[in-house]
């Protein structure tokens, strides 16, 4: 359904005077999401993984440069196509409930999303009602304004908004942040149900533990790229299924496992593997060049010594 090939996002930062330096928060990122699959992209918050969502939707700020290939249903996602598909075939569930318009009643926002996806008046109202009940929102809630509902409920409204138009690819940016355990489970359960109904679901999150039980595969994001794409089941105490040292370190760092943290030197390898500053297996080859992806049947790994 969606394939991302060697995606690089750079933006120019204007420093003092005429100095300009390019930041590359995403560099050479690969992944693919199949129909009926929930793929989790795991990485630190603020590490640039939200940019991936914005690149797919074509809503990056103007000073960003995007290189590499984005394919949706086998065809390149050009800015024009992105505009046509956004909100129809590709929908975003944003991270912040700040994306809701504070001045419009919740029902109106979901109806508007339905209309934007190409439905006519009566049909849009129908679809909005259906989306409301799908997320367990009482009809009365449609008369509320965003500030009148809890965070968990606002998130359900965002989910209703994103799925009202019957999109094939749903991207959820940090769907569990700020939610307590039950609400977080509910939020992921809804996404799982969409995947089970045949949609492609891309979940971008920092919370490996929360998303693992719901994901089919996991893409591990580090240093601007996906260092490994693997079956979710490989995250288990038998570490042999994980091929990248960073993926293993992430699993071992969970408090229910070893709570392990190497002492990180903050000097990253500028040209080599982005993980070499922390990696116990690093050698001269790692410092010299970033590893290219090596393919396996369930995914790939980028490591010289995997």
């Amino acid at each position: 359904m969606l394939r991302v090939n060697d995606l690089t996002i750079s933006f120019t930062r204007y420093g003092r005077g005429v100095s300009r330096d390019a930041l590359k928060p995403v560099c050479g990122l690969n992944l693919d999401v199949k129909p009926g699959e929930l793929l989790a992209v795991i990485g630190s918050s603020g590490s640039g993984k939200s940019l991936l969502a914005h690149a797919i939707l074509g809503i990056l700020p103007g000073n960003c440069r995007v290189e590499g290939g984005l394919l949706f249903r086998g065809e390149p996602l050009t800015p024009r196509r992105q505009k046509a598909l956004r909100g129809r075939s590709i929908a975003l569930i944003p991270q912040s409930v700040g994306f809701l318009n504070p001045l419009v009643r919740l029902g109106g926002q979901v109806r508007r999303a339905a209309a934007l996806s190409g439905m006519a008046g009566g049909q849009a109202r129908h679809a909005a009602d259906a989306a409301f009940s799908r997320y367990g929102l009482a009809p009365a809630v449609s008369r509320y304004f965003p500030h009148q509902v809890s965070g968990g409920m606002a998130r359900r409204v965002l989910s209703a908004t994103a799925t009202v138009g019957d999109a094939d690819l749903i991207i959820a940016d940090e769907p569990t942040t700020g939610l307590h355990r039950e609400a977080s489970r509910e939020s992921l359960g809804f996404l799982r149900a969409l995947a089970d109904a045949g949609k492609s679901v891309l979940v971008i999150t920092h919370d490996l533990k929360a998303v693992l039980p719901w994901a089919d595969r996991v893409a591990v994001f580090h240093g601007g790229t996906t260092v490994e794409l693997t079956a979710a089941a490989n995250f288990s105490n038998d570490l042999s299924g994980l091929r990248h040292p960073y993926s293993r370190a992430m699993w071992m760092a969970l408090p229910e496992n070893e709570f392990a943290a190497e002492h990180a030197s903050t000097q990253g390898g500028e040209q080599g593997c982005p993980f070499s500053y922390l990696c116990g297996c690093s050698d001269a080859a790692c410092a010299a060049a970033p590893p290219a992806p090596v393919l396996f049947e369930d995914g790939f790994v980028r490591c010289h010594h995997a």
Partner: protein
Amino acid sequence: MLEAIDLGYRFGSSGPWLFQGMNIRIGPGEVVGLFGPSGLGKTTFGHLLGGYLAPAQGRVLLGGAALPVRGYCPVQCVHQHPELSVNPRWRLGRTLREAYDPPEALLDSLGIAAAWLSRYPHELSGGELQRIAVARALGPGTRYLVADEMTAMLDAITQAHIWRAVMDHCRENGVGALVISHDEALLARLCSRVIACGGVTGGMSAAVDLAGMESGEGFAGDRAQAAGSAA
């Protein structure tokens, strides 16, 4: 000793009580967990301990006396969102050194790179900013730390790294901590004692000590082991 005695809070003078009758005692160097679903006033409780808010009922005592009203507060709070606690227009070096000059060893153990200090908050990631917020809170005058979902936004590696550094600091300096989190496994790792808030009906006043979650030993044990294998 940091003590909350019969603490209660409500908005205004007639609002519903967020909680009442909360008692807690944290000894120097002791790390205590506070666990429970959101919406029970755990954050407000942390604010009362840190002197950010005045209790509607009860008292907060540090070493038997009320918290100082002026100057550096010996109870420091660190929250989930570091971007809200730093001045967006200051370079981070200025924010970090506002209260005291953190020693190199602390910055190093928290993995803070010198280059970050000349940047502005929006140029750092959430994990990088949080490391700076933590360093800022661990001044020599800090006797207790209130960590309210301090690493809930961070990936597991960053979380483990920050907590290891904080626990080392607390142990070496006899600093006590209240760790507020919804992550039971994290609390079991860090705390010698965990207080669980009841469900929606129980509220905070029904808090009980969960004896079964004691595991402070485990943490110290791993650490000793890690040091041993490094030597």
